[in-house]
């Protein structure tokens, strides 16, 4: 095993591996920033004097509105589920996660169909009361606040999942200590519980806000001028790709700022839990009126984020399914499923390696590179996809020149013309989601474990596989699930990079919906939701199991 001699410098090989890996994944994002070196003064003057302020204000308002709303909904739900025992709690636990399977643009389309002026609700009101246009007030759904509500309804599970884990993992000893010191329940909540859970809550909120920054489908349909719609308008309408990339760079900078704030807010906080199982908190059984209204309140987000839209989709699909349910539809289903599965496994594997590499080499360079890759989540899918397309085609062309020179054959577009391109873009876009979960999981494993295993002569990869991964099984699985569901819903990159004759459910649903055939889009949309539900249920079953921290620690 001469190889192992060389491998003794594994510290460096991890280092190099991570830098190279990050570099590949970050290349599409990097291309966006290269644009900054080609100033487009005229266009920027025009943007500045007309629409730029709108883009900035609307994007920020959207992201922060979503941030606040998901924190409120997600934390409240997590608290109820983690700390109280009531009828229906078991069912609610997985119901609450369901909106995650709902693409934001689909929920926007359905609510618009339901609530806009010509929709069934307002028409019914007019018919019942004999009103005309202008006789009554009805909130307009296609506004900024409408978009905030739509996005929050499907994004709150990010906060809920992380907060719930944080709440239920807080050892009971804390509460006992508070109580023995005479601290009131509400003071305990605000002084102990919430500060302890703060990193998890903020992380969830940051993910939701990144998604809000990158959202295109909803804001476009609502006619809002945000950065994403502005990017496309500048690129397609004004025909200026460089200025569009500069807008994307500006958007990304906002996200960097957001992440820096989030990082600073938890910089000094390090909590470790011991390897052995902490005393679990006994959930308090609810009695009296609260046994009624707590489940009632918990159901509201699911009702609006999932049940109502699904009923509407069913209603539409029931009128159109007969001509859509053919072999082509099953192929779509299969394509979506296996693409999402491959992408999820790839992204989570990469996230594990990166996160662990970061732990082995806590240097500034590594932190920087890994940080850059995580930005992919906030960059609109189209922008990353175009970046990937340009860089991969460039490599493809070089490969073809080589093979033509050596063997006189051209192999075609092996990278940019295949699913490889898609998996790369998904990884670069959704690595942040996986990383956040893995990081939180890994942070809870005490560093002394690594030291112990290493002192016993184990190699880093072996430690990662046999100790860390089993210890943080929940985190790994929730990372897998989140990426899976995200890829399933992903639209712009799939649309741009997929090979010939390859469609997914999301592409199908979008094509029909954007052609203003909402009814025809209902069936593929429902299918996305159903495929997305399976792993959601799986995850809840796992989350409900007692913490696995204790199993392997001895």
């Amino acid at each position: 095993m001469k190889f192992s001699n060389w491998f003794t410098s594994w510290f460096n090989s991890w280092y190099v591996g991570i830098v190279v890996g990050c570099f590949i994944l970050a290349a599409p994002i990097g291309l966006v920033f290269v644009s900054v070196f080609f100033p487009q003064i005229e266009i920027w003057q025009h943007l500045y004097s007309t629409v730029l302020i709108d883009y900035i204000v609307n994007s920020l308002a959207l992201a922060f509105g979503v941030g606040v709303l998901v924190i409120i909904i997600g934390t409240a739900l997590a608290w109820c589920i983690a700390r109280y025992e009531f009828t229906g709690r078991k069912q609610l636990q997985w119901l609450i996660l369901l909106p995650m399977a709902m693409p934001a643009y689909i929920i926007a389309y359905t609510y618009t169909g339901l609530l806009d002026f010509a929709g069934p609700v307002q028409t019914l009101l007019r018919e019942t009361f004999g009103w005309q246009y202008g006789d009554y007030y009805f909130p307009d759904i296609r506004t900024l606040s409408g978009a905030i509500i739509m996005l929050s309804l499907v994004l709150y599970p990010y906060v809920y999942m992380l907060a719930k884990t944080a709440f239920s993992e807080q050892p009971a000893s804390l509460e006992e200590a508070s109580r023995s010191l005479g601290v009131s329940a509400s003071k305990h909540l605000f002084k102990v519980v919430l500060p302890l859970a703060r990193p998890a809550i903020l992380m969830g909120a940051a993910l939701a806000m990144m998604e809000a920054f990158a959202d295109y489908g909803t804001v476009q349909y609502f006619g809002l001028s945000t950065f994403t719609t502005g990017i496309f308008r500048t690129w397609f309408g004004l025909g200026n790709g460089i200025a569009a990339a500069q807008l994307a760079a500006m958007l990304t900078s906002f996200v960097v700022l957001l992440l820096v704030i989030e990082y600073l807010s938890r910089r000094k906080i390090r909590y470790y839990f011991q390897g052995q199982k902490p005393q679990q908190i006994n959930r308090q059984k609810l009695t009296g009126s609260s046994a009624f209204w707590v489940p009632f309140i918990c159901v509201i987000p699911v009702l609006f984020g999932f049940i109502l839209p699904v009923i509407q989709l069913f209603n539409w699909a029931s009128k159109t399914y007969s001509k859509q349910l053919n072999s082509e539809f099953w192929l779509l289903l299969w394509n979506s499923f296996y693409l999402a599965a491959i992408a999820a496994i790839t992204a989570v594997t990469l996230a594990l390696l990166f996160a662990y590499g970061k732990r082995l080499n806590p240097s500034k360079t590594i932190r920087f590179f890994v940080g850059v890759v995580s930005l992919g989540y906030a960059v609109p899918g189209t922008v990353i996809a175009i970046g990937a397309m340009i860089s991969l085609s460039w490599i493809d062309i070089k490969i073809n020149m080589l093979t033509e020179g050596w063997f006189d054959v051209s192999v075609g577009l092996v990278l940019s013309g295949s699913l490889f391109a898609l998996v790369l873009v998904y990884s670069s876009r959704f690595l942040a989601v996986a990383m956040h979960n893995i990081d939180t999981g890994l942070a809870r494993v005490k560093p002394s474990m690594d030291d112990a295993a290493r002192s016993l002569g184990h190699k880093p990869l072996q430690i990662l596989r046999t100790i860390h991964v089993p210890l943080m099984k929940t985190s790994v699985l929730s990372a897998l699930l989140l990426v899976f569901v995200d890829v399933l819903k992903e639209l712009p990159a799939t649309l741009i990079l997929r090979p010939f004759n390859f469609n997914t459910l999301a592409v199908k649903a979008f094509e029909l919906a954007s052609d203003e055939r909402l009814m025809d889009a209902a069936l593929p949309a429902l299918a996305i939701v159903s495929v997305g539900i399976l792993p959601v249920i799986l995850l809840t079953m796992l989350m409900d199991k007692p913490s696995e921290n204790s199993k392997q620690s001895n």
Partner: protein
Amino acid sequence: MKNFICFVFVVVTMVSPIVMAEQVNLYSARKEALIKPLLDKFTQETGISVNLVTGNADNLITRLKSEGKYSPADLLLTTDVGRLYRAKQQDLTQEIATSEAISLLPNNLRDEQGHWLGLSLRARPLMVSVDRVDFKTLTNLEDLVSSEWKGRVCIRSSSNIYNQSMVAALIAQLGESDAQEWVNGLVNNFARSPQGGDRDQIKAVASGMCDVAIANTYYLAGMLSSEDTTTQEQAKKIKVIWPNQADRGVHINISGVALTKNAPNKDAAIKLIDFLLSKESQLWYSTANHEYPVLADIAWSELLQSFGRFKTEDVPLSRLGELNAEAVQMMDRAGWK
């Protein structure tokens, strides 16, 4: 070893298979549902298989460009002329040399050098409420800016290509300052901040939120032939008014096709173009998607006939591509969201 097999399996599934039979590769900005039936028919008749990727036209053009001479695409199908123009500007197309069909087309519906040609036509007229609007008061697009129409006009966002092309056509015909004045006046008369698509504007007129909308005819036709009775009812409350029939005509645009510069299957591609211009395909456009055929001797569907005949703008369509960016800036200045 097991890992290695897994790896090979993943790589093999990810690299798309190379098929050797006679084929055409199509990058299409037309949605799959609106082109696939025709392509299937083509394959049935000729045995040539058609590979299809759909997507946004500009993304497809970028893809074409970055793939360079190794691009597998033979044809680029778009739903507006501006994108065909853009592809030609970027040197991504070539002359469609041997197609007979091209000579049948009116001059303004094809490229001067024959790099692209129109396949179907759409019109963007005024649509008014049957009950609340006196049809005689509205004959020109220019009428909409008068104070009489304040707070009564619905139209979608200026991010949409239909509006960009329409304004570009106005710039070409009225000149810049008159066009800007018209855009300002129109924005001033909006009933609401632009939102939704063309169908939403039609629905807004039907339900009384506004009295006049500007929308493409095939959306109204699609609503009229919908299976949903509410949608049908809404569409029946709408009347189409063909504007500017005494002078320049109504705004039109095309869906069209360009032959890519490095088309690897050129012969098969030209066969497909000929097929798309054949009588039966042209009829299909008009019956299945309620678009107007580009060839003069093709019969219109009953639904299209019910909207009436009309005079069209005869501005060369490539001008719309040239003026697109100017149109967007104009709408930005007017505050058209």
